[in-house]
């Protein structure tokens, strides 16, 4: 299974990942549209990104969520009805919603952010 592994202890809070992600997938630089989120914790930065656990798969009423050939959990937008139960039940709160976006979105382990992360806190891993 492919996933983006996050090493928060290496993160320096530059937010390049968030801007690159939103630019890639939503064509604009906007942290609210990023599928990876960096926030400030008590002792450093905290990276929140989907770990492909798949709990959301069982919450979806239209079977819009499933794993692709590499095990990455993907939403089929043609089936998604925007009920947001996946976002509500995600154990790590890694399914995101945004104003003016009808449907939720999540990391699909494309790896683009990992390529530009200066301290290499993001690593595309294969189990």
């Amino acid at each position: 299974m492919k996933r983006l592994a996050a090493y928060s202890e290496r993160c320096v809070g530059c937010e390049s990942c968030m801007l690159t992600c939103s630019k890639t997938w939503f064509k604009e630089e906007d942290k609210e549209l990023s599928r990876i989120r960096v926030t400030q914790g008590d002792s450093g930065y905290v990276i929140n990104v989907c770990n492909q656990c798949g709990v959301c798969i069982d919450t979806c009423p239209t079977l819009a969520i499933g794993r692709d050939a590499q095990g990455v959990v993907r939403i089929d937008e043609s089936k998604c009805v925007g009920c947001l139960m996946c976002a509500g039940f995600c154990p790590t709160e890694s399914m995101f919603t945004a104003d003016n976006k009808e449907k939720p979105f999540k990391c699909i382990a494309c790896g683009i952010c990992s390529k530009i992360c200066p301290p290499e806190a993001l690593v595309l891993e294969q189990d």
Partner: protein
Amino acid sequence: MDKMRLLARWEYKPVNIYRGYAGRTLYVNISNFSFEERPVSEDMKEKFIGGRGFGLKLLWDAVKDTTKWNDPENEIVISGGPLCGITQYPGSGKCYTVFISPLTEQTYDSNAGGYFGPLLKFSGWDALEIQGKADRDIVVFIDGDNNRVEIYESPFEEVNAVTVTEALHEYFAEDEEDKRNISVVSTGKGAENSYWGCLNMSFYDLRRKTPRLKQAGRGGGGTVFRDKKLAAIVVKKRGIGPSSNNPADLTTLQRVGLKLHKEIRDLDDQQNKMRKVGTPHLNEIMNEYHLLPVHNYKFGQHKDASKIHSKVFERIFTQGIPDGCWYGCSMACAKAADKFELKTGPLKGRKVTVDGPEYETCAGLGSNIGVFDPEWIIEANFYADHYGLDTISLGTGIAFVCECYELGFLNKEITNGLELKFGAKDDIMELIHRMGRGDDEFARIVGLGIHRMKKIFAEKYGAPSDVLENIGMEGQGLEVSEYVPKESVAQWGGYFLTLKGPQHDEAWLIFMDRVNKQLPTFEDKAEALHYFPNFRLWFSLVGLCKLPWNDIEPADNAIKYKGIEAAKVPEHVQNYVDLFNAVTGKKITKEELIIQSERVYNFQRVFQLRLGRGTRKDHNIPLRAIGPVFPDEWEARSDYYDNELKAAGIDPENLSTEEKIKKLQNYRLSQWEQLVDAVYRRRGWNKNGIPTIETLRRLGIDYPEVVEVVKRHLKPEDEWES
């Protein structure tokens, strides 16, 4: 299934849904296969909102004062409401079906989940009105993808819900995945052979690969359906999504919906376990509080209640499936038993998915008839759905029959061989099958309902009328639902001072009244019987399910708010205000929400009056509903009842049990009359339970035809002294 024979087709222009409304309703006359598009005015939206409100308004215009339930003029009107079909908030797929009821002979409105309400609206219609009677069984198909309505000759030899629904999902779907774009309204032979006909409304379960059935259970809507020779109504609409209602403010819908999903995620397991168990979480609770109806409401507790404890059903229900009956319902209480092998009846041996049982069925087709066998209850539930029988009326009705049998008013000769004692599982199941087949005279009589059974048992079998009146748990012609009301004066009102009969759509006040002791005076009870029916019935106008309102509450609800305020779950009330405004673009407040509902409440009250009911004498209450009738009921809780007598200022010493019963009844009957006065007064009605002209004016429903009905019945002696 072979290709169905097309009898009529009507094409319509598509519309865009705007702020929750299609802006028009669909009228279909099945006597002459004519169709009409009827516009929805701003006034109609303002005064009637949608859902049950639209249903009542359309029915009012369609019928005469003298229309009976089986006249062609009677209608089946189905409507969701402006919030129906949003995908973000739990419980958003409900619709109401409005009709003149065979049981109560006045309007009835019954709600169901499933996909029918949303798919109907998104096909372009705020309501579906069916009037007339066909000359043969028909299937009405609303094709929202191709913007047309078709009427087919029904191909079904036998109209029973499970087989009809399965066949029609198969027939109209292009493939497996497409089945979720279809919903079927169906009923069964039990609805042809009784007045207890329910309507099933389907949704397709993609994981189980089977249609699921939710019920518009009460009032005999299924009986009207079959009387009109409707075999099924089907709707199909593809492409529903998050903005199908074209809401004014999608962001608020998302914010509020996401908040509720997380609340349910975090708290359901500690609160009511709806996701695991559904409404049967109440089984053991009602038993503990003496509220579980046992043996026709004689008792509120039974030693075998542990056999139908919710943990038994938790094991039976398949866990881990998103069991919402519309998209976005994370309350997910539509539980099912899978691969359940039927042991009796026409589908014996088949392994089926059974929807439920709900609490009401566990109690009605369980404790109330003395059966504590969960598998039996599930099988009875299945056949009730399949035959199109309301499990509540069926349960309470059979409980009445069993008590009559045990009292010796009925015997095997009368019942055609069935020994219908409490707990007689096999014979009771056979009675249900006979109701489904329609081949047994006694089963037909049972299916006419308690109100008519009382007359027939007296006339035909010589049963004593007064006893039957005391133990027959019905009000206004409708069987009581499955909570023991005897020990709560407020719940006497909650059941018996209702618009349509003793159901718990309107009010459920037992805890508030007797356990929390929050309603000490008649005025307190009357205030609760004003607020809660109005609040609870608001859901019927907009297309929402009320369970996510209070079957889950925010973690700080009972900390931030005290007493009755906490019981209102203020944060959730605010959610509903926000949802309404976010979809419609309006700016209502919590107070206006109540007025919206009060308006339709009073319109319906006048409608009942128009049809010859709706006055004080129609608010009847059987003695079993206000206390013990026979000595064994008193003796089961003798300390408690002796204390009740003392609290009433009556000394139980030296009185026989019969004397004590009589004295408590007299006392409680006088309490009942005081309650009725207080409630009528609070509701803005006169002593006879008729809304005053002032009330109609205040609510903006003083239309000439409404005022005209009321004026005919107003008498000066019914006015309150100032």
